């Protein structure tokens, strides 16, 4: 092994190490922004799927989930990057980074929506009735009664979805976002030091995933309500 390779110049005045750190930054940026999109849209869709007396909103949200869940992420990224700008020329001005963020965000939102729906439906019906009984509107019932409990229930699967999102950000290499996987492929080709480059990139992914896990565990602990114990579930997916 020859770790010196990271100190070599990549041809543009920075070392491979600096390039890799920049790439790590892009990975975290893509994952972070997508996470916000996924959480906002996913929570909204998850809530809509459980609304009483609004069958069309429920159908709309169900369709959303099915649409974004049944197309591979890579294909969705191509849709955002190539197909949509062709259909809507105005989108040609949008930077690739933003498009990938929406692709990854919407893809993950379908999974988050599924978890949010499951969390809400896991609550006893009496919770909703209690909200209604004290005169809350539907909006207030969700805001003050249902969601605070549902989100605590689904924290473990949300943690694993957040880690999945970080790992899935690697697919952004396909549209040449300068993130870690892109760096790995290019640096491997340029330096022929594949093992060193891949090892370093793999370690950074593992560290990032672990950090996400710890952050979520910290938040989960901070949000804990004494006496409200939630069973941990196992997450599937990738």
């Amino acid at each position: 092994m020859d770790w010196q390779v990271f100190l070599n110049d990549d041809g543009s005045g920075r070392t491979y190490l600096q390039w890799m750190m920049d790439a790590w930054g892009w990975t975290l940026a893509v994952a972070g922004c997508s996470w916000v999109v996924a959480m906002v849209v996913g929570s909204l869709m998850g809530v809509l799927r459980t609304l009483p007396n609004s069958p069309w909103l429920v159908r709309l949200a169900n369709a959303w989930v099915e649409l974004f869940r049944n197309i591979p992420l890579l294909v969705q990224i191509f849709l955002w990057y190539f197909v949509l700008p062709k259909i809507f020329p105005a989108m040609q001005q949008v930077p690739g980074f933003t498009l990938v963020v929406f692709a990854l965000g919407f893809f993950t939102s379908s999974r988050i929506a599924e978890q949010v729906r499951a969390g809400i439906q896991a609550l006893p019906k009496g919770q909703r009735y209690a909200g209604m009984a004290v005169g809350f509107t539907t909006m207030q019932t969700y805001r003050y009664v249902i969601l605070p409990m549902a989100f605590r229930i689904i924290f473990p699967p949300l943690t694993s979805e957040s880690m999945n999102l970080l790992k899935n950000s690697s697919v952004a290499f396909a549209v040449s976002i300068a993130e870690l996987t892109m760096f790995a492929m290019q640096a491997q080709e340029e330096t022929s030091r594949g093992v060193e480059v891949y090892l370093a990139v793999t370690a950074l992914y593992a560290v990032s995933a672990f950090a996400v896990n710890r952050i979520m565990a910290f938040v989960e602990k901070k949000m804990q309500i004494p006496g409200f114990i939630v069973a941990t579930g196992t997450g599937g997916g990738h």
Partner: protein
Amino acid sequence: MGGLDLSFFNWDVLSKFVLKGFYFSIQLTAVATIGGIIFGTLLALMRLSGKKILMYPATFYVNGMRSIPLVMVILWFFLLMPTIIGRPIGAELSAVITFVAFEAAYFSEIMRAGIQSIPRGQVHAGQAVGMTYAQNMKLVILPQAFRNMLPVLLTQTIILFQDTSLVYAIGAYDLLKGFSTAGKIYGRPEEAYLLAAVIYFILCFSLSYVVKKLQLKIAIIR
């Protein structure tokens, strides 16, 4: 649909470019599912064996695989396989080996949950009638675990089918590559990607519909 022209796409294009990729995607999914379940079950049994020498390597393997992106695993195998085997292997074969190894980690987690979902009394019943560990697993535990886990296993297979598109990273010729090749040759890449999305959607949506139905059926019998 401003600017899109789907008329280039006909049976000729389909049979010439897409079918070959479709067969490979299906093949890859099938081999990875079967291989993944076999090795995944072994990994799960190792982790549940209670023997440290079996538990630690299996746990390390499963957690390791699960903490790196699939794309990186695909790249790793493609890089290392020729060195291990001693001669270059094609992207397709490399993809098959990668997916079996990668999916084994995910299937093992499903199997582990499935085996643990069987009440302890079942194990004890098997022991009480004098069964060996192997007999107990084969005749009592695993058949029930498989049945409990069938919907999850099938859902994982659908995810796996979607993930096969990631062999794009090493240029293997799969369903997506079939479409993108056709798109390139006919100068219609956007239309090709759109059609690929439609085909993937139809396949995955109908499969998950079947799984949902199956889930209801199994739930009633149990």
